[in-house]
Structures are given as structure tokens and as C-alpha cells.
């Protein structure tokens, strides 16, 4: 449906060149919900704007529905108004001088050949109904709440049955509760309509819950692409592990093994970890062990001796009660770890505990240096 090849875009800032997008290639199959995830400045919004035609890339090809809309080799650059897309903006961009109806009807009024007044009316009303805004059609946009404005923006982006729906951090301006509601709502609409959506966010929860496929970006490049489950459980880099799931990255060295099944013993700053290695990691090589905060279990009473593999003594110096869980900062030897504890764990920092590292939840990455 959407194919991007070797897309590059460099910005000029204060006489230096900042590469915003660096040779990115992506394929988005028809009907999928595709997410560009990454920290701010990673180039995800630039890609979205290049797809929309609001930015002109330096190089590359963008193809929608098999036809190029941008190509630096073929010298094609279709203006945004000819690309037949729908877009929801971070600021909603609902036009304050128009009524809700006029806002949503706008894309229909631009379509060529012209639509009849009656058809515009019917389709606008249907779009408003699909986002449950039938009651406020005649209100001026500024009199709506944030959530309602968001729905207007969504209806406006969908009313003309665009080829692609582009979503530029649409939820970041909403409060927590509304965000959750809109997350479900957008997901429902997109699936019901069977439309292909490209979603940009820096929020891992949004990305993991809504997407069929995620492209994780850093520094203008796609560092990993896959289903949410893959990205979360099989990070391919320290960055991916840290950005999705707040993994602790612990440097180590393969001290024993690996044996025929790949099991090995790794020396870390705070002790020995028994773990399964990915293929290709040899004895004696330097590696990173990714330990997720939820991969540590506090052993109460039944604590085995400290020398046992995968059991460590940690000191929790800070604990924040989040509600569903307690997040703690722990020290084990010279290392600082982020740990997640059950909400009913009675701890009062400083608190010393013995934890078991659940190694089936850990990932070992070869160190690239």
C-alpha cells in the first residue's frame, strides 16, 4: 500500500546539516496499522510529513497504491492536496472559524469531480456519527472540549475515504483518561473501515497496544521493525531494549559455555547470571544482558544462599508507588537497576532484599564496540 525507499532528508540549522531522516525504507501492507515509534528528534514526524507532501525529502521514493507520489529519480513530487490522504495533527488543527459540520465537510468540498450538496451532507453526517459527534454539528470548533476537537479532526481525516490515514501524535495533548478512550476509539474506527494507517508516537504503550507493526526509529534510521510482541520481547539493540520496556542494560562477559543448547554463565558487575545466548556469541565475548524491571522477583524468606546462580542481594534506595506496581531504584554491587515490585510488597527504603533474575525474560545482545 505504502512503500518508502531510501528516503533521506537533511535540515539546515545554523550552518550545520542535521540529518533528520537517513536512508529509510519501509513497507506498509494494505489495511495495517503501522506505527513509527521513537524519541523526539528521531525523524518519525519528518517521515510522516514527507508522506503527506508537507515536507520535500532530499532523496528517495514514496509510493502509494503502486503509484509514486515522490521520486527523486523520476522528478515527481505531488503536492499534498493531490495525494488523497487524511491526517490528524498533534494540535488537532480544527479550524476555529468554521462549525464542526463545515470542518468535516471541507475535504468533500475539495474533491473533484464536485460532489452534490446532498452527498456532502450525507457523508459528513455519517462521518460525524461514526465519531459520535452528531449532536454538535452546528457548534463552532472553539466551543468543543479537547476530546471532541480530536474527534472532529478524526472525522475530517476520514470523511473523504483517503488512501492513507496519517496520525501525528494525535493523543499527546489529551489527559490520561481521554487518551485511553481515544486510543480504543481510533483503533476501532481504523479496523472497521479497513483503512491503512500510519501512526507517529513517542509513547511505547500507544505503539504496543494499537499497532500491527512498529518501526522503531533512532537518529533518523529505523533500528528495528516488527510486531509489537517482537519489539518488546526480542529487542535487537540496547536502544530498543531501553526505549521499549525500560530494560536495564548490564554489561557482562561470557565466562562459561555456551553449551550445546546455548546456555552459558555470564559475569556481571554484581554476580553470575546463567542465561541462554543467541547464536553466534562465543565464549569470552563481551555482551549486554537486558534485564527488564519485571524480570526480577523478590524472594521473601525462602532466599537461597547468595552464591546460587541468578540470585542477588540488592538494596532498594528509592521506591515510588505507581498504583498497579511499585517502581524501585536498586543497587547491586556497582550497578544501578530499575526494578518493578508487586503493589503489595511492604518495603521501606533503604531495604535489602534477595531477588531472583528470571532469565527466561532476559535477552543477551552481543556488544557492538
Amino acid at each position, binding site marked *: 500500500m505504502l512503500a518508502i525507499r531510501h528516503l533521506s532528508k537533511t535540515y539546515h540549522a545554523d550552518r550545520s546539516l542535521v540529518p533528520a531522516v537517513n536512508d529509510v525504507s519501509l*513497507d506498509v501492507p494494505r489495511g495495517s496499522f503501522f506505527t513509527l515509534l521513537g524519541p523526539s528528534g528521531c525523524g518519525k514526524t519528518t517521515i510522516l510529513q514527507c508522506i503527506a507532501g508537507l515536507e520535500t525529502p532530499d*532523496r528517495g521514493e514514496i509510493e502509494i497504491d503502486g503509484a509514486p507520489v515522490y521520486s527523486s529519480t523520476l522528478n515527481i513530487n505531488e503536492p499534498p*492536496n493531490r495525494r488523497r490522504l487524511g491526517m490528524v495533527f498533534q494540535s488537532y488543527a480544527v479550524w476555529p472559524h468554521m462549525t464542526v459540520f463545515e470542518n468535516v465537510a*471541507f475535504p468533500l468540498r475539495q474533491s473533484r469531480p464536485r460532489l452534490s450538496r446532498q452527498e456532502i451532507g450525507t457523508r459528513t453526517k455519517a462521518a460525524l456519527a461514526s465519531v459520535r459527534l452528531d449532536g454538535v454539528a452546528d457548534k463552532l470548533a472553539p466551543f468543543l472540549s479537547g476530546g471532541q476537537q480530536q474527534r472532529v479532526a478524526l472525522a475530517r481525516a476520514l470523511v473523504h475515504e483517503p488512501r492513507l490515514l496519517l496520525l501525528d501524535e494525535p493523543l499527546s495533548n489529551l489527559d490520561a483518561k481521554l487518551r485511553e478512550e481515544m486510543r480504543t476509539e481510533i483503533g476501532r474506527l481504523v479496523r472497521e473501515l479497513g483503512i491503512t494507517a500510519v501512526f507517529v508516537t513517542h509513547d511505547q504503550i500507544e505503539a504496543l497496544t494499537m499497532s500491527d507493526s512498529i518501526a522503531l526509529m533512532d537518529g533518523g534510521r529505523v533500528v528495528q521493525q516488527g510486531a509489537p510482541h517482537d519489539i518488546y520481547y526480542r529487542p535487537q539493540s540496547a536502544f530498543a531494549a531501553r526505549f521499549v520496556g525500560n530494560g536495564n542494560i548490564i554489561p557482562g562477559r561470557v565466562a562459561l559455555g555456551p553449551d550445546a543448547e546455548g546456555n552459558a554463565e555470564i559475569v556481571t558487575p554484581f554476580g553470575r547470571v546463567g542465561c541462554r545466548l543467541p547464536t553466534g556469541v562465543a565464549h569470552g565475548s563481551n555482551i549486554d544482558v537486558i534485564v527488564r524491571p519485571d524480570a526480577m522477583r523478590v524472594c521473601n524468606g525462602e532466599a537461597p544462599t547468595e552464591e546460587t546462580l541468578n540470585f542477588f542481594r540488592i538494596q532498594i534506595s528509592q521506591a515510588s508507588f505507581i498504583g498497579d506496581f511499585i517502581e524501585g531504584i536498586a543497587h547491586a554491587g556497582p550497578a544501578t537497576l530499575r526494578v518493578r515490585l508487586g503493589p503489595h510488597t511492604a518495603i521501606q527504603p533503604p531495604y535489602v532484599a534477595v531477588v531472583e533474575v528470571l532469565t527466561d525474560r532476559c535477552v543477551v545482545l552481543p556488544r557492538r564496540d
Partner: protein
Amino acid sequence: MPPTVSALPAAVPTRSRRIHLSEERVIGAIALAVVVFLVGGPLLMLVSTSLNPSGEATLMPAGVAATNYLRAFSPPDTFTLIANTAFYTAGSVVIALVVGSSLAWLTERTDFRLRMLVRLIVFAWLAVPPFVSALGWIQLLNPGNGAINVLLRTLFDLPASPLNVYSLQAMIFVTGISMSPTTFIMISGVIGNMDHRLESAAQVHGAGRMVAFRRVTLPLLTPGLLAVAIFQAMVVVQMFDIPFAIGLTARVPVMSTRIYALATAADAKPEYGLAAAFGVVLLAIAILLIGLYLRITRVSERFRVVTGKGYRPVRQKLGRARIPATVLVLLYFLVMLLPLAILLWNSLLPYYQTPSVSALAKLTLQNYRHVGSEPLITRAFWNTIVLVLSTATISMGLSIVVSWISVRSKAALGRATTVLTFAPIAIPQIVFAFAILLLYLRTPLYGSLAVIIVAHITIFTAFGTRMVSSSMLQLHHELENAAKVSGASWLVTMRRVVVPLIFPQVLNGWLWIATHSARDLTVPILLMTSSNVVLASALWTIWEYPNIPEASALAVMMVVGLMVIVVPLQIWSVRYADRSGSSGKDDR
């Protein structure tokens, strides 16, 4: 899982990039070309004429020589000219600053009751063309039969008139007073932007009211006041109509009237080369002043602390000072109203006479009837309508396109556009009018109404661009992008989204330009022929004729006509500012 790459050809950097002829590029390029031609053409003409040794108006000087400059600044005449200009500028600015800042302090920082009246009069003053107030003062203070002179002579039994309007002092007084309203508005802004908590902090820490004023308030206000002073100095240096109405008879030439005299010499060959040399010098002074102004405002921005709206300082109680303050303010209004009152008086009399009870019996409307039926005035009236409507409309159209380019394009193009359109603000109107005269002298456009329209568009687009671009800067760019992605072309986006959203400022700018185009005398008088007379130049012609009663009637009609546009506009824009300020609060 690495990203899969299908068999599309890998991109190679392209050598040539085709330029797409989208409508925004075409319209933008046309608008830019128009602006470059409008601003650049006359300036080029001015400089090349000033360098032409033969003194002829030309784009290709036969040689380059400083002859004109040397002649222009040969003593002893030059010394008088520079001294006059310097005194005139300094004197007028001091008067405007003293009056403006006292009024601003009274209305912004004290519990003075006549606040609304001050604002109303100050805003209505925009409807009074400066040269009209000068004509009023001439009727009040001329040494022969000026109303005030006659009054003083009879009251004190004086042998001669004590006051003379035809003097440098009178010129300074009239200019200073006529500039006090804009000065008041600017200084009110400076005082309003100050963070008053800084002052309170000084008082809490033990400073008395006077010490707090001297050590905290005054230093904080200084950059702002200095900026206002420099801006107004630039306005006075450029001022043409008051020195023209008063200074020519008084034989007190300043730079601006000297250019006019050289360019339009009635009995001799016009000295275009000399006039151009003066023009270039005046332009240099104005650019120097605006550079200084920009520098100081940049400094004063640093002093500016963002304050929450609604934080109002405690107003000082005037107490016993209320009575002298009221008297002074009323006296100021009297001074403002007097020239208009005498014009009204004389417009109702068959021939010029000083106000008296006996003359009341002769009051008549015949001057107004005459003015209405005179072919010259009828022509001038229709010309003015055409001038005002086309200037305001075309200028605003250009302003919108040019502002869009300067706000939305990131590259050097945007900056260049900004500089180019703002340039006419620094160019004295008389210099510009003269440069336009030089450029169109040998074209059929010369002598037509079109040349005045072209001149006004060039001058006023700068102001329009300033208003439009500041409001466009506040528009979130996503509002525009949303329209583009929805399938709207650039023109539709501008028409349906951008312009409606900034419509209040566009309307405001349109009316501002319309008013200033109608009241401007500088351009029409320098470019005047029998066919392109407008109301301002017609008024001057009748005054010179001299037919003082009819000139007065026409002046009164102009002021009333302008007031009908200006006063509702000013009230509306103040209300609009208040409303948009308060609605921002409701949102939270």
C-alpha cells in the same frame, strides 16, 4: 527482522530538479516581482540621479560624480538647513514625549477619572490630517488677524501680535502637539508591558515611592522611552506637510521641504540632481534612525518580563493633585480642538473673520454648498474614492501574499522579502514620492491618478505587511497543513482558512491604509497635475487660492468623513483586543 526492500530502483542524487509551477509559486513570484519593482525602481532612480553630474533625472547617469552632493552641502545655506532640521526634530519630539508620557502615566498608573475621554480623543485624532491642524493653527496664530492674536491684542491692548505661526517655534509646537496622540499610545504600551511587581519589590525592601521610581521604574522604562523617542524622531525628520504648510511662508526650510522646493521649482528648471542628493541624505538619516530603533527595541525586549494578564498595578491615588491634573488634561483637549474649532467657524462664514458674537448672525452653509458643486472638488472626491479603495485593496492583497512568503518560507527568501517590504517604513515619504516622480516622469503614467496609487501602494504595503505578518505568525502552521492534506489548493487554503482566521487584522489594516491614503498630502502634492487632484491636494489648492472659508469647509468635511471610519474602527479594535484577551482566560 531487517526492513525488507523491494525492487524499486535505489535513489541517486538528482542533478536537476524540475521546478513545479504550483499556483503558490506563481502568485508568490508575481507578488515578489511587483514588490521588487515598486521599491527597487524608484530607489535606483533616486541614487543614479543624485550621482548624475548633469542634474537630469536618469537611470543611466552619464558619469558618476559627487557634484550634486557638493552643491547641496555648500555653506552657508546648508548649516541653516541642518540646524533647522535638528531643532525642529528635537523640539517636536520633546513636546510629544512630555505630553504623551504625562497622559500615559495618568491613564495607566493613577486613578484619573477621565481615562476613557483621553483614549477617545487620542484615537479620534487619527482622523485629523496633520496639515489640516496646521491650517487651523494658521487661522489661530497668524500675525495679521489670527484669532488668538486678535484676542490677546484686544485683551491686553497690545500694539502688535504677540504670537507668530510663521516661525520655527510654532512649527515645533504644532508638530509636537499633533504627534502627542501616537506618542501616548506607544508609551502606554511601554508602561503597560512593565512588570509592576519589580516596583513593588523595591518598596517592600524599604525604598520610598520616589526612590522606587528613580531606582527601579525609570531605569526599566528608559529603553522603551528611548525607542519611542527615536521612532518619533524618524517620523519628524520625514514629516513634510506641517513644514510645508507653515515653514514655506516662515522661510524656515527643513530637509523635506527643500526637496520639494527643488523638485517643483515653479519659475525655474527643477533641480532634480540636487533634490536627489538631499533625498539620499535624508534616506541615510532615516535608515540610521531605524537601525538605532531596532537595536534599542532588541535591548528592551530583554527587559521585558512576561507577566500574567490581569495583573494590574495598584493605581496611585491622585488626591489633591486631581484638580490640577484635570485642568491640564482639559487644557490639552482645548489645544487639540482649537484648530478644528476655528476651521469649523470659518467654514460657516461667507468670508474670513475672527470669532465674535456679531458674526453669529452671518452663519451660513453656503461654503458647503459651493464645495459640493465645484467641479474640481467633485473630481477630487471621485479620485480620492478610487485612490483609497484601490490602494487599500491592492496593498492588503500584496501584504497577505508577501507576509505568507516571509512567514512560511524558511530560507533566505523569507528574510529578503521581509527586509524588502519593510524598507519603505524607513524611507521618508517625500523622498519616495520624489523618486517615483523621477521614475515615471517620462512615462504616460506621470500626471495620472495611477501614479499616486502606485506610490501609495509602495508606501503602505509596508504597514499592511507588518500587521498581517504579525498575526500570521500566531497561526499554527498545522491549520494550513490540515487544509492542504484535505485536498485544498494553495488559493483555497488562503481563501477558506488563512484569510478568514486573520480577518480582523486584515480589515484593520485595510481601514488603516484607507485612512492614511485619504489624509496624505505628501504624495498627491508632489505628483499633482490638473487631472489627478485628490481631496488633500484640492484642499491645499483652494487654501492657496486663497479661499479660506471653502478650504475650511472642505477640511471639516474631510475630518468628519475620516472620523466616521476611524472612531468605530478604534473602538472595535480595542474591544476586540479586550475580548480575545479575556476569552483566552475562559478556556482554562
